[in-house]
């Protein structure tokens, strides 16, 4: 599948922002001053919002994007949009309450937390619900998205704590390490298990000609590449997949963990760890698309 930069940016940034918001609403990041509320609020909402806005850049008609909020009963893409809008509004209210010193009841915090993770889940289900892409249509796909939101969000929370000059306990730094390790552990399992997933079909079942013998594409419908091949048959990154995976793990997991081990209190080091994690996640999301093959390629290549 062709990776669209806007989609990679969207899933990475809004995933990080939602993960950060999840830890904030359960009180992991105490916001003592009004400046802290504004600063953290702006950063969190900007991450989620920038991701959402960038997701409209790949559309043929971005000005109609509001229509995407209407089909939540059947479409995961629509659900994602609706949930994201609710969460953004809820978070804006949450930060406004923090600014005015109002105590947010526990049930409201928990409700917001649930909605935040439902949004991440909905993002993952846009892909995980597509039966046409065997690698995505796997129960571990949503787990990867949820784990990376939680792990990246905690890393960002720790960086914020350091920036605000608040203490980072050893337990918190260790939790950051454990969560980051678990997230990449799930991702490694996904690369292995979902990577082995194959479509039940073949070019024989795709053409209904299997009972006559073996089927092999002889002539494509047109002399030049078409939209389907361009969009679903993307191959550039596949041959570099192993190298890119090492980049993803190195930047997205290993470097942040090293920072958490050696300099868990340094705002500069943690800021670097967040940037490194984001860079690693860009590579991870690029591979998520570039390594996935669509079942329609059976018609063009005889294999999927």
């Amino acid at each position, binding site marked *: 599948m062709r990776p669209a930069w806007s989609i990679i940016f969207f899933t990475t940034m809004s995933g990080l922002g939602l993960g950060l918001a999840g830890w904030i609403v359960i009180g992991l990041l105490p916001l003592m001053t009004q400046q802290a509320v504004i600063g953290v609020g702006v950063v969190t909402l900007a991450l989620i919002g920038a991701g959402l806005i960038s997701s409209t850049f790949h559309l043929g008609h971005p000005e*109609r994007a509001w229509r*995407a909020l209407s089909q939540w*009963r059947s*479409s995961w893409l629509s659900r994602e949009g609706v949930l994201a809008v609710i969460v953004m509004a809820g978070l804006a209210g949450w930060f406004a309450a923090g600014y005015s010193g109002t105590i947010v009841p526990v049930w409201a915090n928990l409700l917001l937390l649930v909605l935040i993770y439902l949004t991440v889940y909905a993002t993952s289900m846009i892909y995980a619900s597509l*039966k046409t892409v065997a690698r995505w249509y796997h129960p571990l796909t949503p787990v990867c998205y949820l784990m990376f939101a939680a792990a990246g969000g905690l890393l960002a929370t720790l960086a914020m704590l350091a920036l605000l000059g608040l203490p980072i306990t050893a337990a918190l730094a260790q939790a950051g390490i454990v969560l980051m390790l678990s997230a990449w552990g799930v991702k490694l399992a996904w690369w292995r298990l979902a990577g082995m997933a194959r479509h039940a079909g073949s070019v024989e079942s795709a053409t209904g000609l299997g*009972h006559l013998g073996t089927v092999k594409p002889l002539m494509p419908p047109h002399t030049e590449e078409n939209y*389907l091949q361009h969009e679903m048959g993307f191959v550039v990154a596949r041959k570099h997949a192993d190298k890119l995976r090492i980049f993803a793990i190195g930047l997205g997991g290993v470097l942040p963990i090293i920072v958490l081990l050696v300099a868990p209190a340094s705002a500069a080091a943690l800021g670097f760890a967040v940037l490194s994690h984001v860079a690693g996640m860009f590579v991870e999301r690029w591979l998520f698309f570039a390594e996935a093959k669509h079942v329609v390629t059976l018609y063009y290549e005889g294999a999927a």
Partner: protein
Amino acid sequence: MTMLPEPSAIKLGLVIDLDICVGCQACVVNCKEWNTAGYGAPLADEDAYGAAPMGAWLNRVHAYEVSEGAGEAQISRTVHFPKSCLHCEEAPCVTVCPTGASFKRAEDGIVLVNEDWCIGCGLCAWSCPYGARELDPAEGVMKKCTLCVDRIYNDKLQEEDRQPACVRTCPTNARHFGDLGDPNSEVSLMVAARGGVDLMPEQDTRPVNKYLPPRSRRAAEEAPVSLVAMAEAETPKGFWKWVDTALERMG
């Protein structure tokens, strides 16, 4: 509204006879011709006269080599394979649509796109296993086979023209249009007689369109016909033998 409607009694669709199709591409061209005019955005082409033309088409004809046996004994044949929207009963392209632009008609099961609502996100094309949807490169909206909904119900056309353009134009009569929900319709009888198949049944999309597989190659199985024997004249008998001999004698 992208929830699928209750299954309709009338299921309009195509039956494509792979035994007859010769891959002439007439259906491809007439489809583009009809659907680039009339309703909605025209079917655009980019770099149409350049080195790498690319455009939106609603119907494409592949060709496959189907082989039996191996080595010297291998028998191969070419099967031309037209492919367009199958108007699935469980159409994944409809339910994934976030805007309600992609929908299945409750009255006859035709799957359509409302181009005024389509945001061009491309998710429906990703969800379709058959590659039946293509994003228009100029207009940024999703294009797909409409089963020529603007022909089949169009009483301004002659009755024989109220068929999809691809069916009307097929010079070999390999394409048929009808109601596959009616077990006694011509198309349904054809499917029953010839063992019509669904494409990729494992995707659980329940396509309405059916494909009639090529018939077995009977000629290859029977003993070869002797052309020499066919060329030899039969020896006349009785009266005609006498006429024949009499004429011979006359020199």
